């Protein structure tokens, strides 16, 4: 009697572990799949970044490592430019902070999508890779943020960002400018692919996006805002517009994120829930 129930219990446990590892492999594969277009875009854009790096006097290896560690287009651009100008370290630190400040908001947004039960070390690992695009695909995925999914996307995209930078340093003039800009359009296409489905589901989001386009355009035109860097503009506009939206149209985030039933696996078939208008 005991033997039989012991065997059944073991069989139950190992089948649950198999299920977890199957789910992990599936999430990892999805991460890689969703990361491919990001990697391609990164490769193209980092090429141009490599040219800047070369002008600043960085070797291909230095550029590759800098890109691997920072994974920030505007931030690295500013940093390399300052390196070329032999700026003070404090200036580099301050500039990097200001330009990359929007990542703080993105990470903050991600905290509301992370499972409180997720082991802490994951935050230290994927945290460094919160880029615009990687942030976007994690937001688009229903349910709690899956670290394994994130790692898959990181592994296919970040090395390309690094290698592209190195190649840009070595052979920046080879790729025609039109090819580079064509490939980098892919990154904007991805942003749109994330925004549009939500805009279709929610009039609030659709209206919000139009307001953002108008605000972005307006900010370009207003003279007194010309001196502010684009990174600062993004963060100010984000805070203002998102705050207004939150006050006027509060959201039931558990429903919206699909984290209400966190135990059900988040596969692509799961629809995101409707946003509740105030």
């Amino acid at each position, binding site marked *: 009697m005991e033997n039989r129930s012991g065997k059944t219990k073991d069989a139950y446990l190992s089948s649950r572990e198999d299920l977890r590892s199957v789910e992990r492999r599936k999430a990892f594969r999805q991460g890689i799949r969703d990361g491919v277009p990001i990697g391609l875009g990164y490769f193209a854009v980092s090429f141009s970044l490599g040219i800047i790096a070369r002008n600043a006097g960085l070797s291909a290896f230095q550029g590759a490592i800098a890109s691997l560690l920072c994974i920030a287009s505007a931030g690295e651009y500013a940093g390399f430019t300052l390196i070329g100008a032999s700026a003070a370290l404090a200036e580099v630190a301050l500039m990097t902070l200001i330009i990359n400040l929007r990542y703080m908001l*993105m990470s*903050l947004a991600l*905290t509301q999508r992370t499972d*409180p039960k997720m082991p802490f070390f994951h935050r230290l690992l994927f945290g460094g890779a919160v880029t615009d695009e990687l942030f976007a695909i994690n937001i688009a995925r229903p349910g709690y943020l899956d670290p394994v999914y994130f790692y898959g996307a990181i592994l296919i995209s970040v090395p390309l960002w690094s290698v592209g930078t190195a190649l840009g340093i070595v052979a920046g003039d080879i790729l025609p400018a039109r090819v580079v800009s064509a490939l980098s359009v892919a990154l904007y296409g991805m942003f749109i692919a994330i*925004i549009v489905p939500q805009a279709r589901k929610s009039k609030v989001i659709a209206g919000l996006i139009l307001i953002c386009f108008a605000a972005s355009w307006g900010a370009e035109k207003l003279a007194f805002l010309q001196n502010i860097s684009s990174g600062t503009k993004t963060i100010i506009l984000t805070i203002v517009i998102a705050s207004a939206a939150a006050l006027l149209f509060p*959201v039931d985030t558990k429903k919206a994120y699909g984290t209400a039933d966190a135990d059900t696996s988040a596969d692509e078939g799961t629809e995101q829930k409707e946003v509740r208008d105030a």
Partner: protein
Amino acid sequence: MHSKWTYILVMFAVTYLVRVLPLTIFRKPINSWFMQSFLYYVPYVTLALMTF
């Protein structure tokens, strides 16, 4: 002047902290309806602002 590696280290340290600190500080859902709604809208607003 400073070695390139020192510069790179500074760039990395600042960028990493900017990204990781919020994730390490806020480990549970923030219990404010405003912050929850605000952070729900942030991704779409930020992506829309960067796209245009």
